């Protein structure tokens, strides 16, 4: 049986899937309470894309010999078994914080999926080719908001700057490469995430400049999510996300 501990391929797929699922779930928390109806629809659409990506990745992981099904992976793992970067579990905060988080992730995801579309894992390559197209839309959406809010009123600018400042130390983890990753890079299944930083910086610098937002200094970066260490926020999120499945095992609707 493949597990995240014994199989680096499975572990890599879970890392990708958990990023998409956790961020997707966070965005669903805006459903019915986004600032405008159009935004409500937009954030729900983006969430749908991300959760769809997660489902495809979980299915691929299970096909490698993993246990259970996609629901098991989403609903019955505890926080320490999730391998997402801490960036995506950050609470929504205000709309600026959500857009800052979305911009940082989407700018990374577009690069990552673009590279993974050439993965030796042909299933993963197929998922990546589709995800890249979707994430281009997500990136444009969040970029436009960061620019509009940054280059907006005094209040919106202050909030956008604060959001970028607050999220910054969570961005470094996306570009980490550990022992497990190196095995996957060598096998041509994964890509060297550290090499995506250059293109990510280009996108982010361009958007922040247009938004008249000051780019924070690259200081100490948070780490650990990809090894299962999370902020307390993930536990709270999972409590809500997993409640039904845990309270009523095997429930269908």
């Amino acid at each position, binding site marked *: 049986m493949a597990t995240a501990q014994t199989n680096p391929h499975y572990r890599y797929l879970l890392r990708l899937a958990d990023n998409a699922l956790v961020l997707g779930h966070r965005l669903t928390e805006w459903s019915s309470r986004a600032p405008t109806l159009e*935004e409500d629809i937009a954030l729900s*659409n983006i969430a749908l*894309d991300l959760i*769809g990506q997660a489902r495809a990745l979980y299915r691929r992981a299970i096909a490698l010999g993993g246990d259970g099904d996609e629901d098991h992976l989403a609903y019955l793992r505890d926080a320490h078994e999730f391998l997402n970067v801490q960036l995506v579990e950050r609470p929504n905060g205000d709309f600026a914080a959500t857009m800052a988080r979305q911009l940082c992730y989407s700018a990374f995801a577009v690069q990552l999926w673009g590279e993974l579309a050439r993965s030796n894992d042909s299933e993963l390559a197929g998922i990546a080719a589709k995800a890249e197209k979707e994430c281009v*839309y997500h990136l*444009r959406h969040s970029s436009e908001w960061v620019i509009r809010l940054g280059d907006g009123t005094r209040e919106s600018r202050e909030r956008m700057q604060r959001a970028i400042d607050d999220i910054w130390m969570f961005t470094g983890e996306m570009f980490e490469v550990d022992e497990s990753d190196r095995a996957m890079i060598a096998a041509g299944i994964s890509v060297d995430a550290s090499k995506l930083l250059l293109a990510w910086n280009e996108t982010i610098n361009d958007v922040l400049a247009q938004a008249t937002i000051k780019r924070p200094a690259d200081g100490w970066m948070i780490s650990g999510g990809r090894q299962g260490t999370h902020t307390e926020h993930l536990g709270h999120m999972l409590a809500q996300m997993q409640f039904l499945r845990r309270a009523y095992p095997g429930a269908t609707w």
Partner: protein
Amino acid sequence: MAAAATSDAKRADVLARAHAVLESVTDPELPFLTITDMGILRDVRVAGDAVEVAITPTYSGCPAMDVIAIDITTALAKAGFDNVRIHRVLSPAWTTDWLSAPAREKLRANGIAPPERAQGKRALFAETEVACPTCGSNSTQRVSEFGSTACKAHYRCLACREPFQYFKCI
């Protein structure tokens, strides 16, 4: 030899009938388009007494995919095909370029602006010129990149003032 030829002919017949049935299956969100029009139906095969159907999602999270799979199974079952296997294929990734020319016309006739042809990677802030499906004017404005379904954006026409949907290009 004769037996093999007969079985080949029979298989071709079964395949033709299965294809005919699948021609009637439509997209639940765009009921005037068939899954062939949409490019969602990728392959149909006959293996023994089973019909194998390959479909591809338009968007990763498109909820219509589950409904389409059920509709395919139901339509084939009604035509006497009891053993249907549906595979989801992700590669190559679906693109709006697979929408047939009649499909584009049907979209326009139903008030949805058809997608522009995909032109490789677009610049981050490149604006697409979208013609109003009602009056044909190019004087249109994007309201939101995300519309009522994953595959559509929300626009308005500045000439005839009608809001409309644009089938996004991916």
